[in-house]
């Protein structure tokens, strides 16, 4: 990424988008960019990330499976079921593949708290699948809070002894995409970067800098209220949500500019504080999500 494009080349958004798309199209046409296999494992979690992925736009999910990858296994989205589905998972091991994992790895009782299917009559645990597929993958993406650091699945008291993916694959390089759920752009953008240019630059926690480098607080449209000490007292107020417990000042994502649901709005834009869902340690470290009794005086507290 050393070749900077400088004026007099046009630098408008349209020109940049055009350069990127022609680059990608040419790469696809001349064979330098190849479709790769993608294995998408769902372990101990809520499948929220794959639902979020289906909400992607430009590119959308259809484009992903049509032009970017061969989705060889996805528990939620594939047609095959039962042992037939697991057979496809096993066959994937023979070829090169990118592994995406959402959900935490449950360690308790040798992983029996999270069974993802049966193989040759025996239960296949998430723990076994994560280790087996993680060892051979060309790239690993830990998708969502649970896969990156345990997330909601590992919240106290963590009955299934869930951990993040890195804990069971300590020597493997993996790109971490925290978020509950992950924004479809963060996943699709990282995937596209891998296909077009290789691994994206990441910070010391393994998060791609292109999506996770800026504090929400530093791009928040309500920042002028924070700097002047003007704080909301209840949900729906249009000022800074800091005193209600906003975690924007400790969370790094591009939510304020990218926004959600087809880029239309985001929590703070809808007058509710950021709960820090993309911060490591979520949810326990980000609790309480809302507090009403910091600036307002409650009589019988």
């Amino acid at each position, binding site marked *: 990424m050393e070749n900077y494009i400088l004026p007099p080349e046009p630098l408008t958004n349209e020109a940049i988008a055009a350069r990127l798309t022609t680059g990608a199209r040419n790469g696809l046409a001349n064979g330098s960019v190849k479709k790769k296999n993608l294995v998408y494992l769902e372990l101990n979690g809520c499948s929220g990330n794959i639902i979020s992925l289906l909400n992607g736009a430009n590119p959308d999910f259809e484009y992903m499976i049509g032009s970017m990858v061969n989705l060889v296994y996805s528990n939620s989205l594939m047609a095959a079921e039962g042992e037939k589905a697991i057979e496809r998972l096993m066959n994937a091991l023979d070829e090169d593949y990118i592994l995406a994992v959402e959900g935490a790895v449950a360690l308790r009782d040798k992983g029996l708290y999270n069974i993802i299917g049966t193989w040759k009559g025996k239960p296949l645990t998430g723990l076994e699948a994560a280790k087996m597929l993680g060892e051979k993958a060309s790239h690993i993406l830990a998708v969502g809070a649970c896969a990156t650091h345990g997330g909601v699945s590992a919240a106290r008291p963590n009955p299934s002894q869930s951990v993040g993916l890195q804990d069971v694959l300590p020597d493997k390089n993996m790109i971490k995409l925290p978020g509950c759920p992950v924004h479809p752009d963060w996943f699709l953008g990282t995937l596209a970067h891998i296909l077009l240019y290789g691994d994206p630059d990441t910070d010391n926690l393994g998060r791609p800098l292109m999506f996770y480098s800026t504090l929400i*607080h*530093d791009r928040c449209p309500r920042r002028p209220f*924070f*700097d*002047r*000490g003007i704080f909301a007292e209840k949900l729906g107020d249009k000022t800074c949500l*800091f*005193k*209600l*417990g*906003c*975690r924007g*000042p*400790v969370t790094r994502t591009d939510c304020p500019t990218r926004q959600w649901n087809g880029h239309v709005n985001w929590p703070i834009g809808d007058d509710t*504080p950021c709960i820090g869902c993309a911060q490591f*340690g979520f949810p*326990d*470290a*980000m*609790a*309480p999500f*809302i*507090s009403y*009794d*910091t*600036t*307002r*005086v*409650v009589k019988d*507290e």
Partner: protein
Amino acid sequence: MQNIRMLQQQVNSLINQARHDIYSISATSDPTAKQVKLQRIWDALTSIQFLNDLLAAHAASSISAANDRQPLNTMPVGQPISPTSANPAVAVPNQTFTIQDLANYDGKNGRPAYVAVGGVVYDVTNNRAWAAATHFGLVSGRDYTQEFASCHAGQQSILATLPVVGRLV
């Protein structure tokens, strides 16, 4: 009082900006970008120094106003405002807190949020990492010497930016 709060917040946001610039400088290899950031840090330091002097003047005038005998704007003898004087050690106000006193400053119901580290009590009421007087699962009004040492080893600079309110006894 409001004025002092505002000055303090300006200082804090300048400090944050400078920190951010330092991080960006360490991450970039583009010499032009570096130059711009370095200049901005220099400017920030100049502003901080100015605001610091202003705050000291405020403090001095409020002391003399309280004494009511000295004319306003007189500096305490022996402490002239000088832009070149070395950083004095952080002056810890005389207020003392027991651990029970400290527990009252929990940031609830309009009360300020204080925490102690290494025997010094700091005000985190408006600290951006302490939204709703909580910080990564910690509530305010307690002593966090150990927690600070384990999570922010080698980051004493964090403490230097917090307003000091007294000593833990």
